[in-house]
């Protein structure tokens, strides 16, 4: 449990944020300049805010009114920096064992962490010889090996290209599922957040706009403009039923069957995927003779008019929420209102591999 309340001024920028986040992965999400990096630097103790407090579990690491400011080396917080910050004069093994030699000595074990991040073959190398993806995996392992009680990750994938991102995301999912410590993950990439986070804190111009479970935040029509309407989309949880011979995977959600391009998960496993609102077509009647494989019968539960020509339609199918972005003209022509029934059409090929995670 992280509980914080912060006020800080940085030039013309004012940070005034407070939120509570349960354990698990909490994403601080917002555009660049929204204050996310400032917040985690304050949590780590690398920056001192004007006022406020930071509590981690039942430990107060900063409280301006009580004059508590635990220095960063005593906070027990691991930090994965955007630029990794590996020590250039030490080899990978030297970087990994730094905390155990000179810093926090904890129970963290080298072997399992090295295996989890798949960096055993790099141990003797120097950081300068590593690829971007390898550098970030070493940086994550180094932070974990300091036995932190909280792990901060500041856009660890931002400096990587799409291929490297796709390479590291499964490691981060494994990290989330195997390491029992809370993680605060800073990102401006909706698909990363959708895949990794349990809780999302949406920041805008130094203020918290919304906090909640990832599924709720992504299906919230008020948050959609902050994500950028093109990036808005809801998260569906589904179970892999079968892998078909024609390269598709058969999934089951709470209320429907879905076909998506082959996923690299085993049958029976749960996956979560983000369906972009702009990829969803609505129809009043069950469409026939069309190429799209996924047709979900839904109930409209909310319509939200944006500032442009679009309308964000929130739909329910089973227990899942789906967002569809359509034009206002269509919404009027279809006479969509809350409670009306319609069919959501999702093209199979529109579901990209980057949007599917565990």
């Amino acid at each position, binding site marked *: 449990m992280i509980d914080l309340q912060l006020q800080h001024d940085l030039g013309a920028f004012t940070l005034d944020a407070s939120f509570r986040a349960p354990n698990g992965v909490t994403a601080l999400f917002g555009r660049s300049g929204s204050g996310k990096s400032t917040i985690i630097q304050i949590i*780590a103790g690398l920056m001192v805010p004007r006022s406020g407090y930071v509590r981690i579990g039942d430990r107060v690491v900063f409280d301006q009114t009580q004059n508590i400011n635990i220095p960063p080396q005593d906070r027990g917080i691991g930090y994965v920096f955007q630029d990794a910050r590996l*020590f250039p004069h030490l080899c990978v093994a030297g970087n990994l064992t730094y905390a155990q030699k*000179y810093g926090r000595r904890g129970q963290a074990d080298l072997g399992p962490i090295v295996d989890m991040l798949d960096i055993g073959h790099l141990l003797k190398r120097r950081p300068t010889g590593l690829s971007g993806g390898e550098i970030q995996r070493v940086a994550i392992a180094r932070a974990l090996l*300091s036995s932190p009680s909280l792990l901060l990750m500041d856009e660890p994938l931002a400096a990587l290209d799409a291929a490297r991102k796709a390479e590291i995301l499964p490691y981060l999912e494994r990290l989330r599922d195997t390491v029992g410590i809370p993680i605060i993950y800073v990102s401006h990439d909706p698909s990363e957040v959708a895949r990794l986070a349990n809780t999302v804190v949406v920041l805008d111009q130094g203020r918290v706009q919304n906090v909640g479970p990832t599924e709720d935040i992504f299906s919230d029509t008020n948050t959609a403009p902050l994500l950028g309407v093109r990036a808005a989309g809801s998260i569906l949880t589904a179970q892999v039923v079968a892998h078909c011979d024609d390269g598709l995977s058969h999934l089951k959600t709470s209320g429907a069957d879905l076909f998506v391009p082959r996923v690299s998960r085993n049958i029976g496993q749960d996956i979560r995927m983000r369906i972009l609102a702009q990829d969803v077509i609505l129809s009043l009647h069950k469409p026939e003779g069309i190429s799209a494989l996924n047709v979900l019968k839904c109930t409209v539960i909310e319509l939200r008019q944006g500032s442009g020509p679009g309308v964000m339609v929130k739909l329910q199918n089973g227990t899942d929420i789906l967002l569809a972005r359509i034009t206002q003209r269509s919404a009027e022509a279809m006479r969509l209102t809350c409670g009306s029934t319609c069919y959501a059409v999702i093209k199979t090929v529109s579901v990209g591999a980057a949007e599917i995670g565990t």
Partner: protein
Amino acid sequence: MIDLSQQELSAIQLSLTVSFWAVIVTLPLGLWVSFILTRKTFFGQSFLNAIVHVPLVLPPVVTGYILLLTFGKQAWLGQFLENTFGVVLAFRWTGAVLAAAVMSFPLMVRSMRLSLEAVDPALEQAALTLGARRWVVYVTITLPLMLPGIIAGCVLAFAKAMGEFGATITFVSNIPGQTQTVPSAIYALLQQPGAEAQAARLVWISLVLSLGALAVSEWMARRSSTSRKGPHD
């Protein structure tokens, strides 16, 4: 091997001893001063900076005279040192160390500051988040990354100390066997009619010593930079 006179031998020995101790004395002080000048802000910072650098711009004779005024037998600091610790600096080889140290200090600090400024504080922050105390971070991250600059600073200071003349001769005079360094010996020989050959020999010797120091520093700098890169570059 060329035959060296007793006077030449003792001058060479004294120059090497004085320079060695000048470096040993200024090394920790240089690290400390370069750190507070680069990483801290405090009242009187630019004054300290000026004091450190003033021997660079002052005529060496003036620096030697100021040393005499502060550490001489009649000066209060000189008397204080003699009465409490039994240390006499003026006209002793230890005074030559002080003069050489003061003169070479700005060069050492300059080189250390440049290398410290090149060390990314972000790396030190990263070490802090791994739980290392501040002084441990300094020893395990900052110092190793500064190493080429530290080596360069030491070699510069050593060379400067080897060549120091004005402040030394003013502060500790030119007593053969006691305070006569190689430069003072060359100066004394040049004052003496018919001793040009002897002077030339010392000139050659000091040339060899200086070039040797330079070569050693090059070698050490190269070694520390290759050990930092490793085999996969």
